């Protein structure tokens, strides 16, 4: 019987493509994330202006400027929640980050649009950020283990974690403010 090479090719291609499509998607809507973080009752959002004092620190973290002048965030009892985006390779990764008293409480990938690197959504990766603080040079106080094949997504999430800590420090809910 002649070997159906075209079928084998199609099967392999289907497996490869289905892995890609499974990577993309909305894992949790930002609204649901905020409801979960604030036990069903998220506070009114607050505003943070990205002023000239803050811009250089943001640039040092992201290696580019933020493309907005104002960010909204949600804060209560010294905790703040941020919905932030950063491009991994080509598309933005929407991430929810909670900072409590200057340390990261949790980080969660909400929407992943890249075709690869989705492994950053799993707790084995995101749990590394729990308890992290911002040290000298706007760096995290710990090393974050990378994931083979997801280098750019890992880098994007690490930047967002550092950014959330920086923004929290400038928020109305930073230590000693509220």
């Amino acid at each position, binding site marked *: 019987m002649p070997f159906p090479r075209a079928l*084998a*090719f199609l099967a392999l291609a289907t497996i490869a493509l289905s892995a890609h499509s499974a990577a993309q998607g909305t894992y949790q809507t*930002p609204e649901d*994330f905020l409801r979960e973080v604030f036990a069903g009752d998220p506070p009114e959002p607050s505003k943070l202006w990205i002023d000239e004092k803050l811009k250089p620190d943001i640039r040092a973290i992201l290696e580019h400027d933020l493309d907005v*002048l104002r960010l909204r965030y949600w804060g209560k009892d010294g905790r703040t929640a941020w*919905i932030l985006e950063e491009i991994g390779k080509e598309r933005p990764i929407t991430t929810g980050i909670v900072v409590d008293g200057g340390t990261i409480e949790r980080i969660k990938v909400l929407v992943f649009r890249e075709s690869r690197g989705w492994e950053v959504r799993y707790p084995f990766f995101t749990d590394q950020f729990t308890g992290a603080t911002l040290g000298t040079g706007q760096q995290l106080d710990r090393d974050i283990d990378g994931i083979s094949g997801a280098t750019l997504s890992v880098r994007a999430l690490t930047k967002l974690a550092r950014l959330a800590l920086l923004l929290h420090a400038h928020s109305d809910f930073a230590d000693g403010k509220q």
Partner: protein
Amino acid sequence: MANNNSPRAPLQQWHRRVGMTGAVFFIFLITTGLLLNHTGALGLGKRFVETQWLLDLYHISAPEPPVAFSAGEHFVSRLGDRLYLDMKELPERADRLIGGLKLGDTLLVAIPGKLLVVSPTGELIERIESAEGVPAGMTRIGLTASGQLVIHAAHGDYLADLEKLDWRKSTTAAVGWQRRSHCRPS
């Protein structure tokens, strides 16, 4: 040497066939991956696909005519998935432009699921999205006679206060809804 009568023989034969087919597939992936990593050096970014069936396969079609909205003395427009305030491109892409209007000292651009607050010089002040309460299924925007923003969405009309992020159901009938106009080449 393998014995053709062995029960393992068909398995080995299939193993070889699948392996060979897989090798061709992976060599193809490696080669095209290397080429794509050197797009600039090879000038691939300047060569465009013109084969119709290939364009159809990737759902690539000619962009629609530009769509524009008058916003005070400015124009908000979309060409392809790029958005512009007058001649300045905004740092956001969208496959649909719902509206654009002047709101106080700023301009407001509505795209699916998002409101963009833009300065008159084209700086993006902020994005307001569903997490901030933007009603789902937004289809048009307009202003009341007193200049308050109204959003027509899937579940009705909403009076919006973007400073307080307050979205209230509205029954106001007197709304000046935005109407889009196709840009004409000057």
